């Protein structure tokens, strides 16, 4: 009754060579779902292109990011326009400096700020929030009161004092941004944890005797990742804007270095004076990156949601 055909023959031959078949983990499923999400993949591609452009683009620029074009100075609205002939592909800023190289250099700084800030927020905020939410009671109370105090402290003074202590550096910028970025995330994560820890599967894990930290790492955190991913991508543009405020105070990025936030605020000031390109170029980069981050965040959430079919 055992029919002899090719399929059975090959199966028969393979039985002796059976290797352990790799199982498919839940993260693999998530990865596959993410890769199928068109909007997220396009965004990832676009974002990678922007990052590459910001590092390779400067090789094509004819001006450095700090050189003043003395000819254009004083007549920016006429002589500072974007053009291939003068070498100012994106035009010049108010002082006659090449906007193309400035936007690219600004991209490097802003993207770094965004990533590092989001990373600190995600790591510190998630750990802090899950511990507070999971253990509850006094631990939660103390941890959350600390968050309350940190949220209310005049942030500007912390920055000013940091500036005095550390002089200035871009590293300091990251510290400053990291200090506030995790607070909101911690609160959101704590809220979700409070809700999650009462679910039946957690109850079951505790009943079996699984250790607390394993529950947190293996059960709670993966279920939080969706919201965390969404919120992290919401944080990034906020951080880029905060960075421009910090540099305005004299901390962080100093002239001639610049960032998207600084370029956009300068462009916004001069938009009624006939130099719209000063606003449009940095703003477009910012907006495109923003959209990319959002779609990636949504893609991550959709991919990581175990119930989404």
């Amino acid at each position, binding site marked *: 009754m055992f029919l002899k055909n090719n399929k059975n023959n090959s199966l028969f031959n393979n039985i002796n060579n059976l290797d352990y078949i790799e199982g498919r983990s839940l993260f693999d499923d998530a990865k596959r779902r993410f890769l199928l999400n068109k*909007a997220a993949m396009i965004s990832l591609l676009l974002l990678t292109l922007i990052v590459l452009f910001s590092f390779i683009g400067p090789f094509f620029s004819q001006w450095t990011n700090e050189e003043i074009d003395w000819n254009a100075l004083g007549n920016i609205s006429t002589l500072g326009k974007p053009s291939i002939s003068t070498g100012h592909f994106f035009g010049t800023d108010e002082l006659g400096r090449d906007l193309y190289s400035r936007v690219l250099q600004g991209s490097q700084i802003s993207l770094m700020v965004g990533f590092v800030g989001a990373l600190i927020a995600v790591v510190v905020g998630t750990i802090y929030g899950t511990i507070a939410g999971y253990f*509850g*009671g006094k631990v*939660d*109370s103390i941890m*959350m*009161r600390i968050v*309350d*105090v940190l*949220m*209310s*402290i*005049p942030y*500007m*003074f*912390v920055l*000013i*004092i940091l500036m*005095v202590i550390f002089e200035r550096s871009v590293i300091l910028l990251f510290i400053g941004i990291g200090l506030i970025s995790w*607070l*909101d995330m911690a*609160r*959101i994560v*704590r*809220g*979700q944890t*409070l*809700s999650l820890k*009462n*679910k039946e599967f957690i109850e079951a894990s505790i009943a079996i005797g699984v250790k607390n930290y394993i529950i947190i790492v293996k059960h709670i955190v993966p279920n939080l990742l*969706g*919201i965390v991913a*969404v*919120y992290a991508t*919401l944080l990034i*543009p906020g951080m880029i*804007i905060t960075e421009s405020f910090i540099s305005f105070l004299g901390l962080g990025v100093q002239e001639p270095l610049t960032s998207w*936030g600084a370029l*956009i*605020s300068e*462009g*916004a*000031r001069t*938009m*009624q004076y006939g130099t719209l390109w000063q*606003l449009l170029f940095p*703003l477009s980069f*910012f*907006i495109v990156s*923003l*959209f990319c981050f*959002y779609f990636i*965040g*949504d893609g991550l*959430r*959709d991919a990581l*949601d175990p*119930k*989404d*079919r």
Partner: protein
Amino acid sequence: MIYFIIRRLAVSIPTLLILIILSFILMYSAPGGPFTSERPLPPQVLANIQAKYGLDDPLWKQIWDYTYGIIFNFDFGPSFRYKDRSVNDIIAQGFPVTLTYGTWSFIVAVFFGCSLGIIAAIRQNSWLDYFAVGVSIGAQVLPNFVLAPILVLVFTLLLGWLPGGGWNGGQWQCIVMPVIALSTSYMASIARLMRSSMLEVLNSNFIRTAKAKGLPVKLIIFRHALKPSLLPVISYLGPAFVGMITGSVVIDLYFSTGGIGLHFVNGALNRDYSTIMGITILVGILTITFNLIVDILYAWIDPKIRY
């Protein structure tokens, strides 16, 4: 629950005290003082001024006097920069302004944000989803220091419909543009949080049961799905509301509304210690209160949450 609230209120007093002490120390550590100026004051004059404002007392005594003054006299002290005004005056004038346009912005942002988020979630991955998300992102994309001058250019210079700034005691024409500029910053965040958490809820078993039972969509959303999906949104809204009220510096700057956001930043830059402390305490009280309200709402939303 009542015990929880009482316990929380009891804890908030030491929290505020720690906030006051930390802020005092931070303020004094920053270089410069309220009377550092381009024309440095002759030493005797400086000594006179510092004696008048009690700035020559040791730090602990200043903190003590200050806290005492607040608890028993509700007096936040004189402003060091605006010599004709006390901090009570400044807060009494600025806080209602910020509260008014902050609350309106909040209502607008929540209404539109939640609606767009819910629509996007119901019709996930359809063009309606992308449209709703796109609209809310489009509203947030322009940072408010770009949006504010654009609004003034369009509505005041070009069309002449609205005054370019000022507050005029709360005239509605002066509220419109600040509300637009402020609410758009939050709309996208609310919409996306709403969408993602609503999606998670919509995929759960009890919703599947409801659908199987044949309940109409509206009933499913509003009676069953809305409450659980509000959890992360509310976590965000608590600090966001406080942030909207106190962090609206850009709005105050561009629309000359006289709110406390700008007072605070100017106070910090001018080292106006008493104004800074006054507003910090205000922010602290608001933060504690709203975080408490958010925690209470958690318990209402998810009956399993117990403190």
